[in-house]
Protein backbone atom coordinates (compact mmCIF):
# COMPACT_ATOMS: atom_id res chain seq x y z
CA UNK A 1 0.00 0.00 0.00
CA UNK A 2 1.34 3.42 -0.93
CA UNK A 3 1.98 5.75 1.97
CA UNK A 4 1.61 9.51 1.81
CA UNK A 5 5.16 10.69 2.24
CA UNK A 6 7.56 13.21 0.82
CA UNK A 7 10.35 10.70 0.32
CA UNK A 8 8.73 9.26 -2.81
CA UNK A 9 8.70 12.76 -4.34
CA UNK A 10 12.40 13.06 -3.61
CA UNK A 11 13.22 9.60 -4.99
CA UNK A 12 11.23 10.30 -8.15
CA UNK A 13 12.80 13.76 -8.73
CA UNK A 14 16.29 12.42 -8.01
CA UNK A 15 15.78 9.43 -10.34
CA UNK A 16 14.60 11.74 -13.11
CA UNK A 17 17.65 13.95 -12.58
CA UNK A 18 20.06 10.99 -12.57
CA UNK A 19 18.39 9.53 -15.68
CA UNK A 20 18.90 12.81 -17.59
CA UNK A 21 22.49 13.29 -16.44
CA UNK A 22 23.57 9.71 -17.14
CA UNK A 23 21.91 9.72 -20.58
CA UNK A 24 23.86 12.87 -21.51
CA UNK A 25 27.06 11.41 -20.02
CA UNK A 26 26.56 8.15 -21.92
CA UNK A 27 26.29 10.08 -25.20
CA UNK A 28 29.51 11.96 -24.41
CA UNK A 29 31.26 8.76 -23.30
CA UNK A 30 30.46 6.91 -26.52
CA UNK A 31 31.94 9.86 -28.45
CA UNK A 32 35.04 9.97 -26.21
CA UNK A 33 35.72 6.22 -26.56
CA UNK A 34 35.98 6.62 -30.34
CA UNK A 35 37.86 9.94 -30.24
CA UNK A 36 41.48 10.16 -31.45
CA UNK A 37 43.30 12.54 -29.10
CA UNK A 38 46.08 13.10 -31.67
CA UNK A 39 43.54 14.78 -33.91
CA UNK A 40 44.13 18.52 -34.58
CA UNK A 41 40.75 19.36 -33.11
CA UNK A 42 42.02 18.53 -29.60
CA UNK A 43 45.33 20.44 -29.91
CA UNK A 44 43.82 23.68 -28.62
CA UNK A 45 41.87 22.01 -25.76
CA UNK A 46 43.03 22.64 -22.14
CA UNK A 47 45.37 20.01 -20.71
CA UNK A 48 42.98 19.23 -17.87
CA UNK A 49 40.14 18.36 -20.30
CA UNK A 50 42.47 16.19 -22.38
CA UNK A 51 43.59 14.43 -19.18
CA UNK A 52 39.97 13.73 -18.19
CA UNK A 53 39.20 12.39 -21.67
CA UNK A 54 42.30 10.21 -21.58
CA UNK A 55 41.30 8.91 -18.14
CA UNK A 56 37.79 8.05 -19.40
CA UNK A 57 39.25 6.35 -22.47
CA UNK A 58 41.58 4.28 -20.30
CA UNK A 59 38.73 3.34 -17.95
CA UNK A 60 35.93 3.18 -20.49
CA UNK A 61 34.65 -0.22 -19.34
CA UNK A 62 34.42 0.87 -15.69
CA UNK A 63 32.76 4.14 -16.70
CA UNK A 64 30.20 2.28 -18.82
CA UNK A 65 29.45 -0.07 -15.93
CA UNK A 66 28.85 2.90 -13.60
CA UNK A 67 26.61 4.60 -16.17
CA UNK A 68 24.57 1.42 -16.72
CA UNK A 69 24.24 0.93 -12.93
CA UNK A 70 23.05 4.54 -12.50
CA UNK A 71 20.60 4.16 -15.39
CA UNK A 72 19.22 0.99 -13.83
CA UNK A 73 18.88 2.66 -10.41
CA UNK A 74 17.07 5.65 -11.85
CA UNK A 75 14.83 3.33 -13.88
CA UNK A 76 13.91 1.52 -10.64
CA UNK A 77 13.21 4.88 -8.99
CA UNK A 78 10.95 5.93 -11.85
CA UNK A 79 9.19 2.54 -11.80
CA UNK A 80 7.50 3.52 -8.51
CA UNK A 81 5.49 6.03 -10.51
CA UNK A 82 5.02 9.75 -10.52
CA UNK A 83 3.93 10.77 -6.97
CA UNK A 84 1.87 13.62 -8.44
CA UNK A 85 -0.33 11.08 -10.22
CA UNK A 86 -0.70 8.96 -7.08
CA UNK A 87 -1.69 12.06 -5.10
CA UNK A 88 -4.36 12.81 -7.69
CA UNK A 89 -5.56 9.20 -7.56
CA UNK A 90 -5.82 9.48 -3.78
CA UNK A 91 -7.86 12.66 -4.19
CA UNK A 92 -10.21 10.97 -6.70
CA UNK A 93 -10.72 7.95 -4.42
CA UNK A 94 -11.53 10.28 -1.50
CA UNK A 95 -14.03 12.22 -3.62
CA UNK A 96 -15.54 9.00 -4.96
CA UNK A 97 -15.88 7.71 -1.40
CA UNK A 98 -17.70 10.87 -0.39
CA UNK A 99 -20.41 10.29 -2.99
CA UNK A 100 -20.67 6.61 -3.85
CA UNK A 101 -21.90 5.32 -0.49
CA UNK A 102 -25.47 5.60 0.67
CA UNK A 103 -25.45 6.61 4.27
CA UNK A 104 -26.70 9.61 6.15
CA UNK A 105 -24.84 8.70 9.36
CA UNK A 106 -21.70 10.90 9.50
CA UNK A 107 -19.94 8.30 11.70
CA UNK A 108 -20.26 5.76 8.89
CA UNK A 109 -17.70 7.67 6.85
CA UNK A 110 -14.90 5.67 8.41
CA UNK A 111 -16.83 2.45 7.76
CA UNK A 112 -16.85 2.97 4.01
CA UNK A 113 -13.73 2.37 1.99
CA UNK A 114 -12.54 2.28 -1.58
CA UNK A 115 -9.45 0.22 -2.32
CA UNK A 116 -7.54 0.02 -5.55
CA UNK A 117 -6.11 -3.47 -6.18
CA UNK A 118 -3.48 -4.12 -8.82
CA UNK A 119 -3.16 -7.50 -10.49
CA UNK A 120 0.32 -8.95 -10.19
CA UNK A 121 1.54 -12.27 -11.47
CA UNK A 122 4.02 -12.72 -8.65
CA UNK A 123 3.17 -12.05 -5.03
CA UNK A 124 6.74 -12.18 -3.75
CA UNK A 125 7.22 -13.14 -0.14
CA UNK A 126 4.13 -11.36 1.09
CA UNK A 127 1.89 -13.43 3.33
CA UNK A 128 -1.56 -14.34 2.18
CA UNK A 129 -4.12 -13.09 4.76
CA UNK A 130 -5.26 -16.65 5.38
CA UNK A 131 -1.80 -18.03 5.41
CA UNK A 132 0.31 -19.58 8.06
CA UNK A 133 4.05 -20.03 7.77
CA UNK A 134 3.37 -23.59 6.70
CA UNK A 135 1.04 -22.54 3.88
CA UNK A 136 2.03 -18.96 3.13
CA UNK A 137 0.01 -18.60 -0.04
CA UNK A 138 -3.02 -20.57 1.07
CA UNK A 139 -2.27 -23.38 -1.35
CA UNK A 140 -2.20 -21.06 -4.38
CA UNK A 141 0.62 -20.84 -6.87
CA UNK A 142 2.95 -17.99 -5.86
CA UNK A 143 3.15 -16.87 -9.49
CA UNK A 144 -0.48 -17.64 -10.31
CA UNK A 145 -1.79 -14.04 -10.20
CA UNK A 146 -2.79 -11.94 -7.21
CA UNK A 147 -4.73 -8.80 -6.44
CA UNK A 148 -2.59 -6.59 -4.24
CA UNK A 149 -3.85 -3.33 -2.64
CA UNK A 150 -2.02 -0.23 -3.88
CA UNK A 151 -4.21 2.67 -2.74
CA UNK A 152 -7.08 3.24 -0.35
CA UNK A 153 -9.43 6.15 0.27
CA UNK A 154 -9.32 8.21 3.44
CA UNK A 155 -6.56 8.81 5.91
CA UNK A 156 -7.63 6.17 8.43
CA UNK A 157 -7.79 2.43 7.78
CA UNK A 158 -5.00 2.82 5.24
CA UNK A 159 -3.25 -0.28 6.45
CA UNK A 160 -4.38 -3.48 4.82
CA UNK A 161 -2.88 -6.87 4.18
CA UNK A 162 -5.81 -8.11 2.12
CA UNK A 163 -4.41 -9.98 -0.87
CA UNK A 164 -6.64 -12.11 -3.05
CA UNK A 165 -5.69 -14.92 -5.39
CA UNK A 166 -6.72 -14.03 -8.95
CA UNK A 167 -5.33 -16.77 -11.20
CA UNK A 168 -6.39 -17.40 -14.79
CA UNK A 169 -8.46 -20.29 -13.53
CA UNK A 170 -11.65 -18.46 -12.49
CA UNK A 171 -12.68 -21.26 -10.11
CA UNK A 172 -9.66 -20.57 -7.93
CA UNK A 173 -10.17 -16.81 -7.65
CA UNK A 174 -10.64 -15.54 -4.09
CA UNK A 175 -12.99 -12.94 -2.71
CA UNK A 176 -15.37 -10.63 -4.52
CA UNK A 177 -12.34 -8.84 -5.99
CA UNK A 178 -10.98 -12.10 -7.43
CA UNK A 179 -14.39 -12.94 -8.83
CA UNK A 180 -14.66 -9.54 -10.53
CA UNK A 181 -11.17 -9.95 -11.96
CA UNK A 182 -11.77 -13.43 -13.34
CA UNK A 183 -15.23 -12.72 -14.75
CA UNK A 184 -14.30 -9.18 -15.88
CA UNK A 185 -17.70 -8.11 -14.60
CA UNK A 186 -18.89 -5.85 -11.84
CA UNK A 187 -19.90 -7.95 -8.82
CA UNK A 188 -22.28 -6.58 -6.23
CA UNK A 189 -22.97 -8.29 -2.92
CA UNK A 190 -25.04 -6.68 -0.21
CA UNK A 191 -27.07 -7.57 2.86
CA UNK A 192 -24.27 -9.72 4.20
CA UNK A 193 -24.70 -10.99 7.75
CA UNK A 194 -22.83 -9.06 10.47
CA UNK A 195 -19.48 -10.65 11.25
CA UNK A 196 -17.15 -9.91 14.12
CA UNK A 197 -14.48 -11.80 16.01
CA UNK A 198 -17.02 -13.56 18.26
CA UNK A 199 -19.49 -14.54 15.51
CA UNK A 200 -20.37 -18.24 15.32
CA UNK A 201 -18.59 -20.49 12.83
CA UNK A 202 -21.89 -21.17 11.02
CA UNK A 203 -22.36 -17.45 10.36
CA UNK A 204 -18.74 -17.10 9.31
CA UNK A 205 -19.24 -19.99 6.87
CA UNK A 206 -22.32 -18.29 5.45
CA UNK A 207 -20.41 -15.03 5.05
CA UNK A 208 -17.43 -16.80 3.50
CA UNK A 209 -19.57 -18.59 0.91
CA UNK A 210 -21.34 -15.36 -0.05
CA UNK A 211 -18.05 -13.51 -0.44
CA UNK A 212 -16.26 -16.30 -2.32
CA UNK A 213 -13.74 -16.69 0.48
CA UNK A 214 -12.90 -19.20 3.18
CA UNK A 215 -13.69 -19.21 6.89
CA UNK A 216 -9.95 -18.88 7.54
CA UNK A 217 -9.91 -15.62 5.55
CA UNK A 218 -12.91 -14.27 7.45
CA UNK A 219 -11.36 -15.22 10.78
CA UNK A 220 -8.04 -13.66 9.85
CA UNK A 221 -9.81 -10.45 8.84
CA UNK A 222 -11.91 -10.17 11.99
CA UNK A 223 -9.21 -11.31 14.44
CA UNK A 224 -7.97 -7.86 15.51
CA UNK A 225 -11.57 -6.98 16.64
CA UNK A 226 -12.50 -5.77 13.17
CA UNK A 227 -15.95 -5.94 11.66
CA UNK A 228 -16.26 -7.37 8.18
CA UNK A 229 -17.97 -5.28 5.45
CA UNK A 230 -21.64 -6.02 4.78
CA UNK A 231 -21.91 -4.68 1.25
CA UNK A 232 -19.23 -4.91 -1.43
CA UNK A 233 -18.95 -3.76 -5.03
CA UNK A 234 -15.95 -4.79 -7.16
CA UNK A 235 -15.33 -3.09 -10.50
CA UNK A 236 -12.67 -4.38 -12.94
CA UNK A 237 -10.36 -1.58 -14.00
CA UNK A 238 -8.93 -1.36 -17.49
CA UNK A 239 -5.70 0.46 -18.28
CA UNK A 240 -4.19 0.62 -21.77
CA UNK A 241 -6.88 -1.75 -23.09
CA UNK A 242 -5.94 -4.41 -20.54
CA UNK A 243 -7.57 -5.35 -17.27
CA UNK A 244 -5.20 -3.77 -14.72
CA UNK A 245 -6.89 -4.53 -11.44
CA UNK A 246 -10.07 -4.01 -9.47
CA UNK A 247 -11.64 -1.15 -7.52
CA UNK A 248 -13.41 -2.45 -4.42
CA UNK A 249 -15.99 -0.39 -2.54
CA UNK A 250 -17.00 -1.87 0.79
CA UNK A 251 -19.23 -0.69 3.58
CA UNK A 252 -20.27 -1.87 7.02
CA UNK A 253 -23.80 -0.80 6.12
CA UNK A 254 -25.72 -3.75 4.57
CA UNK A 255 -27.08 -1.39 1.89
CA UNK A 256 -24.16 1.00 1.94
CA UNK A 257 -23.12 0.49 -1.64
CA UNK A 258 -25.03 -0.75 -4.66
CA UNK A 259 -25.16 -0.57 -8.47
CA UNK A 260 -25.51 3.24 -8.39
CA UNK A 261 -21.82 3.36 -7.46
CA UNK A 262 -21.12 1.86 -10.89
CA UNK A 263 -23.77 3.56 -13.03
CA UNK A 264 -23.22 7.10 -11.76
CA UNK A 265 -19.44 7.08 -11.50
CA UNK A 266 -18.27 5.62 -14.80
CA UNK A 267 -16.30 8.77 -15.50
CA UNK A 268 -14.49 8.40 -12.18
CA UNK A 269 -13.38 4.92 -13.23
CA UNK A 270 -12.30 6.32 -16.61
CA UNK A 271 -10.29 9.11 -14.96
CA UNK A 272 -8.54 6.61 -12.65
CA UNK A 273 -7.75 4.47 -15.68
CA UNK A 274 -6.30 7.39 -17.64
CA UNK A 275 -4.14 8.51 -14.71
CA UNK A 276 -2.86 4.98 -14.23
CA UNK A 277 -1.78 4.91 -17.88
CA UNK A 278 0.78 7.57 -16.94
CA UNK A 279 1.62 6.35 -13.44
Amino acid at each position, binding site marked *: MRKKSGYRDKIYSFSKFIMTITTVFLTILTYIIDADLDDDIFSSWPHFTIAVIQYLKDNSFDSLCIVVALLFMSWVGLKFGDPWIWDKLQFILDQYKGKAFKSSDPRSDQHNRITLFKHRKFIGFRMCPTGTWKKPWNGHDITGGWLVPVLRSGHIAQKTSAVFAAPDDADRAEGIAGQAWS*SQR*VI*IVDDLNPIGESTSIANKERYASKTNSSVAMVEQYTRPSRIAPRSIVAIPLEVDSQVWGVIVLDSRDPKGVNEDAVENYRLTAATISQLLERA
Partner: protein
Amino acid sequence: MNNWINVSQSDVNKPLEKKVRGINVVMMISPFDVPVASRYGLNSKTNEFVVEFKYLASSEYTKVVDHADGVKFELGCKTGKVFKVLIDNNHFQTNGYDSVDVSIELGLKEALREINEHESDFTRAGNFSAIRNYLSHQTQVSV
Protein backbone atom coordinates in the same frame (compact mmCIF):
# COMPACT_ATOMS: atom_id res chain seq x y z
CA MET B 1 -22.51 10.00 -39.75
CA ASN B 2 -24.71 11.74 -37.24
CA ASN B 3 -23.47 13.10 -33.90
CA TRP B 4 -22.49 10.87 -31.00
CA ILE B 5 -25.47 9.95 -28.84
CA ASN B 6 -25.02 8.76 -25.26
CA VAL B 7 -25.89 5.10 -24.81
CA SER B 8 -28.43 4.67 -22.04
CA GLN B 9 -26.75 2.57 -19.37
CA SER B 10 -30.08 1.43 -17.97
CA ASP B 11 -30.99 -0.09 -21.36
CA VAL B 12 -27.67 -1.85 -21.90
CA ASN B 13 -26.27 -2.60 -18.46
CA LYS B 14 -29.03 -3.81 -16.18
CA PRO B 15 -27.93 -5.51 -12.94
CA LEU B 16 -28.55 -9.24 -13.25
CA GLU B 17 -28.82 -11.67 -10.40
CA LYS B 18 -26.76 -14.76 -11.18
CA LYS B 19 -25.74 -17.91 -9.41
CA VAL B 20 -21.97 -18.28 -9.38
CA ARG B 21 -20.83 -21.56 -7.85
CA GLY B 22 -24.11 -21.84 -6.00
CA ILE B 23 -24.05 -18.31 -4.61
CA ASN B 24 -26.39 -15.55 -5.71
CA VAL B 25 -24.55 -12.39 -6.75
CA VAL B 26 -25.62 -9.32 -8.68
CA MET B 27 -23.51 -8.87 -11.79
CA MET B 28 -23.16 -5.94 -14.13
CA ILE B 29 -21.10 -5.47 -17.24
CA SER B 30 -17.83 -3.66 -16.58
CA PRO B 31 -18.14 0.09 -17.38
CA PHE B 32 -15.16 -0.39 -19.70
CA ASP B 33 -17.10 -2.89 -21.82
CA VAL B 34 -20.24 -0.79 -22.22
CA PRO B 35 -20.22 1.77 -25.03
CA VAL B 36 -20.61 5.29 -23.70
CA ALA B 37 -21.85 6.66 -27.01
CA SER B 38 -22.87 5.49 -30.45
CA ARG B 39 -23.41 7.10 -33.81
CA TYR B 40 -24.68 5.82 -37.10
CA GLY B 41 -24.91 6.78 -40.72
CA LEU B 42 -24.90 5.59 -44.30
CA ASN B 43 -21.58 5.33 -46.10
CA SER B 44 -22.68 6.34 -49.61
CA LYS B 45 -19.47 5.00 -51.21
CA THR B 46 -19.87 1.46 -49.96
CA ASN B 47 -23.64 1.66 -49.40
CA GLU B 48 -23.08 0.41 -45.88
CA PHE B 49 -25.02 1.46 -42.82
CA VAL B 50 -22.48 1.92 -40.02
CA VAL B 51 -23.13 1.83 -36.28
CA GLU B 52 -20.04 3.03 -34.41
CA PHE B 53 -19.32 2.74 -30.68
CA LYS B 54 -17.15 4.77 -28.34
CA TYR B 55 -15.81 3.39 -25.04
CA LEU B 56 -14.30 4.77 -21.85
CA ALA B 57 -10.54 5.25 -22.23
CA SER B 58 -10.08 2.94 -25.16
CA SER B 59 -8.69 3.30 -28.65
CA GLU B 60 -6.88 0.58 -30.52
CA TYR B 61 -6.26 -1.00 -33.92
CA THR B 62 -9.23 -2.88 -35.29
CA LYS B 63 -9.91 -5.82 -37.60
CA VAL B 64 -13.05 -6.65 -39.58
CA VAL B 65 -14.82 -9.95 -38.98
CA ASP B 66 -17.11 -10.89 -41.84
CA HIS B 67 -19.77 -13.56 -41.41
CA ALA B 68 -21.44 -12.93 -44.78
CA ASP B 69 -25.22 -12.38 -44.72
CA GLY B 70 -24.52 -8.68 -45.15
CA VAL B 71 -23.21 -7.90 -41.66
CA LYS B 72 -19.60 -7.26 -40.62
CA PHE B 73 -18.14 -6.39 -37.23
CA GLU B 74 -15.08 -4.26 -36.59
CA LEU B 75 -13.39 -5.61 -33.45
CA GLY B 76 -10.51 -4.22 -31.38
CA CYS B 77 -7.33 -6.26 -32.01
CA LYS B 78 -6.27 -6.08 -28.36
CA THR B 79 -9.53 -6.21 -26.45
CA GLY B 80 -11.94 -7.79 -28.93
CA LYS B 81 -14.49 -5.02 -28.27
CA VAL B 82 -16.98 -4.23 -31.03
CA PHE B 83 -16.17 -0.79 -32.43
CA LYS B 84 -18.39 -0.88 -35.54
CA VAL B 85 -21.25 -2.85 -36.99
CA LEU B 86 -21.32 -2.59 -40.80
CA ILE B 87 -24.58 -3.46 -42.52
CA ASP B 88 -24.38 -3.93 -46.28
CA ASN B 89 -27.47 -2.32 -47.81
CA ASN B 90 -26.73 -3.91 -51.22
CA HIS B 91 -27.21 -7.34 -49.67
CA PHE B 92 -30.64 -6.50 -48.27
CA GLN B 93 -31.75 -4.41 -51.25
CA THR B 94 -30.91 -7.18 -53.75
CA ASN B 95 -33.00 -9.48 -51.59
CA GLY B 96 -36.08 -7.44 -52.39
CA TYR B 97 -36.02 -4.76 -49.70
CA ASP B 98 -35.58 -1.58 -51.71
CA SER B 99 -36.23 0.89 -48.88
CA VAL B 100 -33.10 1.93 -46.97
CA ASP B 101 -35.03 2.12 -43.68
CA VAL B 102 -36.33 -1.42 -44.07
CA SER B 103 -32.89 -2.75 -44.99
CA ILE B 104 -31.34 -1.00 -41.95
CA GLU B 105 -33.98 -2.49 -39.71
CA LEU B 106 -33.37 -5.91 -41.19
CA GLY B 107 -29.64 -5.32 -40.98
CA LEU B 108 -29.84 -4.59 -37.25
CA LYS B 109 -31.89 -7.76 -36.74
CA GLU B 110 -29.39 -9.70 -38.83
CA ALA B 111 -26.55 -8.22 -36.75
CA LEU B 112 -28.31 -9.37 -33.58
CA ARG B 113 -28.79 -12.84 -35.06
CA GLU B 114 -25.13 -12.96 -36.17
CA ILE B 115 -23.82 -11.87 -32.79
CA ASN B 116 -25.88 -14.58 -31.09
CA GLU B 117 -24.81 -17.27 -33.58
CA HIS B 118 -21.10 -16.47 -33.55
CA GLU B 119 -20.67 -15.81 -29.83
CA SER B 120 -17.26 -17.52 -29.83
CA ASP B 121 -15.86 -14.83 -32.17
CA PHE B 122 -16.52 -12.19 -29.53
CA THR B 123 -13.82 -12.90 -26.99
CA ARG B 124 -14.83 -10.13 -24.62
CA ALA B 125 -17.88 -11.60 -22.90
CA GLY B 126 -18.95 -8.38 -21.17
CA ASN B 127 -18.72 -6.31 -24.33
CA PHE B 128 -20.54 -9.04 -26.25
CA SER B 129 -23.45 -8.79 -23.79
CA ALA B 130 -23.45 -4.98 -23.96
CA ILE B 131 -23.58 -4.92 -27.78
CA ARG B 132 -26.22 -7.65 -27.86
CA ASN B 133 -28.33 -5.65 -25.39
CA TYR B 134 -27.80 -2.51 -27.47
CA LEU B 135 -28.82 -4.20 -30.74
CA SER B 136 -31.72 -5.90 -29.05
CA HIS B 137 -32.93 -2.56 -27.71
CA GLN B 138 -32.46 -0.85 -31.08
CA THR B 139 -34.40 -3.53 -32.97
CA GLN B 140 -37.24 -3.29 -30.43
CA VAL B 141 -37.32 0.50 -30.81
CA SER B 142 -37.30 0.36 -34.61
CA VAL B 143 -40.15 -2.20 -34.81
